[in-house]
């Protein structure tokens, strides 16, 4: 029972479910999250921020007349401050339970929150964000990157600090927790996608099955190839090759750590592999979405699945899905279907980490390091299972189930949309903080100084030699031609 409150994984689940639970109060006619900050594409700063209660979902004519929303007239700065205080309190409780230094955490989080939000704001500037069809009068050009450009701005800002002001990055380290933030975001995202899924249940089923099929393929093919190359051509020992194969081919940090534990590697091995994974995921994040847009202009779902299969770490993968959906925003397919596809693929990958680590543990204990009396308990699968995945499926299924039940009642469906819109504010903020903190931990110079060129060589050969391209082929095979209405 204690474990339920002692890991970052569990606390991502609890916080995500807490925000989700608050949002569901809307179903009872009371909006508890309408004060959250909503950021719009802006040309003058006074248009940039407003409470989410002013968003379209809250003005739906189908909402019941007695629906209570008190926050529409809040000034943007108050809404933003309330959002900050809420996140500070909730995350500090988690930090306390995780045994972190709470005052230090709160200080670091404050800097991370405001810096991340500033980046998000910059990314929403009209000349950066506005798509050609949404340019306001007087604006004759814009990059058309949508507000998701804020993610890239946050990543670049984090990278600048991480590489040119490493002292500051160290001072922020207590709250530099990209995996925690993205896992929390993914739990909240489940509900947001659940209401989207009702629009096309056949497509939802197809994404779930095809996502599962795609990752099963990727696991079996990627891992074996990377392991073989690392062992045969780069002469790595088994202790290095297995975590490296999992890190490069499957899911980055979590997979490298789970594999390291499964084969009883020394802690230095998964730690080094993880550092490398984070660096390369940043590189992927910066170019793969744009490559996807260039080579798959008519296949947005293939592009989305590709991000889930090719980009390592939860943060970078789901984040690249968000950027990709921004780049494809003018496509006929609803952009949220793309985010659902990337997230589903990524979440299934996470589910399989535990199973694959278990398989490797069996091979190592009963085959490679065979010793009398040693055994691998099946409970290891549960121990290595990423718990936030439960939160994701729970919020997805609850909202999807409610949406199915409310299908005949526009009033209740409208309140459900308000609920998911309110919680989505926090999902976006967790995303932005993920990008910023990924940048903070990506110290290219330090990694180079540590002399891990040989590891990096395997990574480059595998990632750019076949992982990305096999991922593209598998995505194309399972998602080509999917055109949601």
């Amino acid at each position, binding site marked *: 029972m204690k474990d339920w409150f002692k890991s970052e994984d569990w606390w991502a689940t609890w916080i995500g479910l807490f925000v989700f639970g608050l949002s569901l109060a809307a179903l009872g006619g009371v909006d508890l999250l309408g004060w959250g900050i909503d950021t719009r594409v802006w040309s003058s700063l006074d248009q940039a921020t407003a409470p989410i209660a002013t968003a379209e979902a809250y003005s739906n004519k189908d909402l019941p007349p007695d629906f209570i929303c008190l926050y529409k007239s809040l000034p943007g700065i108050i809404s933003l401050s309330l959002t900050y205080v809420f996140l500070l309190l909730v995350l500090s409780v988690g930090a306390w339970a995780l045994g972190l230094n709470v005052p230090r955490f709160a200080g670091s989080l404050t800097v991370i929150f405001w810096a991340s939000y500033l980046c998000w704001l910059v990314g929403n500037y009209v000349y950066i964000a506005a798509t050609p069809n949404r340019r306001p009068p007087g604006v004759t050009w814009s990059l058309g990157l949508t507000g998701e450009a804020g993610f890239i701005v946050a990543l670049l800002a984090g990278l600048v600090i991480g590489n040119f002001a490493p002292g500051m990055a160290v001072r922020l380290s207590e709250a530099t927790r990209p995996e925690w933030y993205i896992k929390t975001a993914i739990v909240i995202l489940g509900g947001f996608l659940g209401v989207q899924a009702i629009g*096309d249940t*056949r*497509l939802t*089923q*197809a994404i779930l*099955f*095809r996502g599962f*099929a795609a990752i*099963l*393929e990727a*696991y*079996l*093919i990627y*891992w*074996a*190839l990377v*392991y*073989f190359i690392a*062992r*045969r051509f780069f*002469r*790595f*020992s*088994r202790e*290095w090759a297995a975590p490296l194969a999992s890190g490069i081919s499957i899911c980055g940090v979590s997979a490298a750590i789970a594999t390291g534990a499964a084969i009883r590697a020394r802690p*230095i091995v998964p730690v*080094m592999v993880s550092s490398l994974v984070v660096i390369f995921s940043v590189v992927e994040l910066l170019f793969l979405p744009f490559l996807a847009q260039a080579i798959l202009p008519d296949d947005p779902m293939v592009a989305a699945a590709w991000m889930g299969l090719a980009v390592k770490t939860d943060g970078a993968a789901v984040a690249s899905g968000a950027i990709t959906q921004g780049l494809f925003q003018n496509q006929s397919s609803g952009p949220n279907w793309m985010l659902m596809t990337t997230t589903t693929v990524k979440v299934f990958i996470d589910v399989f980490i535990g199973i694959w680590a278990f398989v490797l543990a069996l*091979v190592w204990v009963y*085959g*490679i390091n065979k010793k009398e009396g040693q055994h691998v308990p099946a409970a290891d699968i549960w121990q290595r299972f990423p718990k936030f995945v439960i939160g994701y499926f729970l919020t997805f299924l609850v909202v999807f189930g409610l949406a199915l039940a409310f299908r005949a009642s526009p009033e209740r469906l409208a309140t459900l949309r308000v609920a998911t819109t309110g919680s989505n504010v926090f999902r976006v903020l967790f995303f932005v903080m993920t990008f910023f903190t990924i940048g903070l931990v990506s110290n290219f110079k330090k990694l180079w*100084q*540590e*002399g*891990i060129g*040989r*590891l990096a060589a395997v990574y480059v050969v595998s990632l750019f030699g076949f992982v990305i391209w096999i991922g593209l082929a*598998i995505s194309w*095979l*399972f998602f080509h*031609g*999917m*055109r*949601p209405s």
Partner: protein
Amino acid sequence: MAPEIGDELQRIPDEPLLPIEKKLILVSLVLGASLLGVLWWVSVTYFNVTPPE
């Protein structure tokens, strides 16, 4: 810390591929290749969402 990791990588022992490792690689690849066909068929047969041409 820097030299330690560099040294660590220099010290990696040369371990030839064991038969069980070869088997793991082979089984994984063969299973992956065969399932590719099966899962693709299930996808297009039972989870087809491509609009008709």
